[in-house]
């Protein structure tokens, strides 16, 4: 007995030592994740400092972007980022909802997996592919068919028509927003599908049992039950749309001019960075671009954090 306890006692420190090392190692790498985020914030603030110091808060409200006179403002890129994302959401949310509805409630069982996989493959295609496709295929198509139709119909409405004014260029805010819609569609659809599947079958079956139609089950049972998760999924998609770079850079036209018409070229924060950063001459120019990046980071951070908190809340609710 005594001998066994002795070996056990002698061995324990060895195991304990290994434990401490391994535990320490995993903690260190977990901390590294935090350090990366912290480093991103610090480096952005540091890089943006000269611009923020020179322009102050006015940077956000300044519509000028003139490398020659070194007068920079973030209004045009911020405006473009928000408008393209808004267009993407207006198109993407209803379509994603329809797709999620079809996958969870309507489609036959054998089709569920392949359909889910296809939607996920749509999400796996990198943005540069959407960009090159948008430039060579979608933009000419929109220029030839969609924009003339919009100008001819909605463009004739007084006031509202200003949104659709100007010549059909193909390259512009509308095309960028449309590509973004296609890109965020799979993200929103797969989150919606996942949260729809957390609805207890008993709830849905009870509703079907008293004669509710599919539509009524979805509107009155599924959606109220998953409200938070659905909004979380939408915000996740919005976070993607706001920061999406390459696809937008190809088709937005990169013009730092705020134009009310969505048919005209514009720019977004990420497109401005992708187009100009390596060619930015002068400290102030580069610093202004980093300040743009910092603003983008702040916006996406808030949106993604809100999305995450909502999805966590849903998870906890489903657990109880």
């Amino acid at each position: 007995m005594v001998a066994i306890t002795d070996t056990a006692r002698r061995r324990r420190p060895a195991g304990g030592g290994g434990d401490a090392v391994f535990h320490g190692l995993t903690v260190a790498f977990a901390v590294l994740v935090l350090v990366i985020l912290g480093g991103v914030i610090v480096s952005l603030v540091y890089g943006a400092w000269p611009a923020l110091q020179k322009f102050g808060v006015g940077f956000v409200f300044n519509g000028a972007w003139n490398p020659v006179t070194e007068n920079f403002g973030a209004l045009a890129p911020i405006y473009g980022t928000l408008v393209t994302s808004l267009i993407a959401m207006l198109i993407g949310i209803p379509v994603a909802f329809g797709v999620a509805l079809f996958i969870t409630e309507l489609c036959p069982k054998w089709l569920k997996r392949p359909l889910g996989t296809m939607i996920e493959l749509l999400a796996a295609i990198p943005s540069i592919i959407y960009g090159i496709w948008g430039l060579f295929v979608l933009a000419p198509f929109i220029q030839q068919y969609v924009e003339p139709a919009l100008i001819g119909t909605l463009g004739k409405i007084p006031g509202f028509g200003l949104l659709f004014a100007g010549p059909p260029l193909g390259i512009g805010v509308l095309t960028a927003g449309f590509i973004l819609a296609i890109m965020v569609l799979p993200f929103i659809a797969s989150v919606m599908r996942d949260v729809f599947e957390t609805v207890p079958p008993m709830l849905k079956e009870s509703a079907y049992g008293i004669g509710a139609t599919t539509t009524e089950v979805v509107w009155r049972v599924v959606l109220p039950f998953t409200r938070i998760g659905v909004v979380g999924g939408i915000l996740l998609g919005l976070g993607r749309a706001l920061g999406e770079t390459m696809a937008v850079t190809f088709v937005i036209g990169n013009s730092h001019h705020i134009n009310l018409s969505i048919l005209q070229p514009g720019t977004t924060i990420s497109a401005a960075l992708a187009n100009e950063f390596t060619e930015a001459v002068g400290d102030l120019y580069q610093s202004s671009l980093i300040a743009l990046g910092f603003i983008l980071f702040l916006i996406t951070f808030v949106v993604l954090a809100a999305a995450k908190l909502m999805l966590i809340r849903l998870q906890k609710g489903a657990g109880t």
Partner: protein
Amino acid sequence: MDLYARRRMSNYVVVGLSLAATAFGLLFLVFVLGTLLVNGIGALNLTLFTQATPPPGSSGGLINAICGSLAMTAIATLVGTPTGILAGTFLAEYAHNSRFGEFVRFINDILLSAPSIIVGLFVYSIVVVPMGHFSAWAGSIALAIIMIPVIVRTTEDMLSLVPSALREAAAALGAPKWKIIVTITYRSAVQGMLTGVLLAVARISGETAPLLFTALNNQFWSTNLNAPMANLPVVIFQFAMSPYSDWQALAWAGALLITVTILLLNISARLFASWSGLEK
């Protein structure tokens, strides 16, 4: 119209719209892949793999970009995989119900969807500026940073799927915790973790934005990791935006190569997961 008919009508409308939405989504998958195939296959030929990117107006290939992409992806994978797996291990094995663990998980999820161009800016200021020049190292670091959160996430998910009875059995035999994790938990979750790594590689092989201001691009064949290096995504970007038709053809060929690689990685990751019975 009576109430019953009206309800049935509105149901038909919603079901119809839902079908239309699904068709719309799939239409674009087919449309994007279709144009890619048509334009890409037309531009495919052997010189792609034997010659470097040409100046405008002459013929050439993409070999420098292909090798550059492979090299940077490989380095990023070598750095990102162990980092991600260890951090994921911490979350799954050591951080149950701990506030710190929840915080790390939260931050990791934010990094997972953060705009990749921001990562490019970050690496630019911590690597490119101090070194004084663009380099393949900087590109690899940027890709690794994008890869880490993906692997952290999948590792944690996969380790959490391992039944705790296995761990308890090993603990009852007196195995120290690190040994349980390395020889029991890892071994039961290895397929799932590999799936995660494959998906992460797929994710970074198409990333363009973080490479724009880190690896930049290089017209010529280069094996120097300390200098700018050609890579497929940036070459596609430059060539597609150019007015030269032979450059545009090369961009399509590169786009096809990248997409096929990514889809193959994704599909094999899925097959891998379903073979090992991880997918529900």
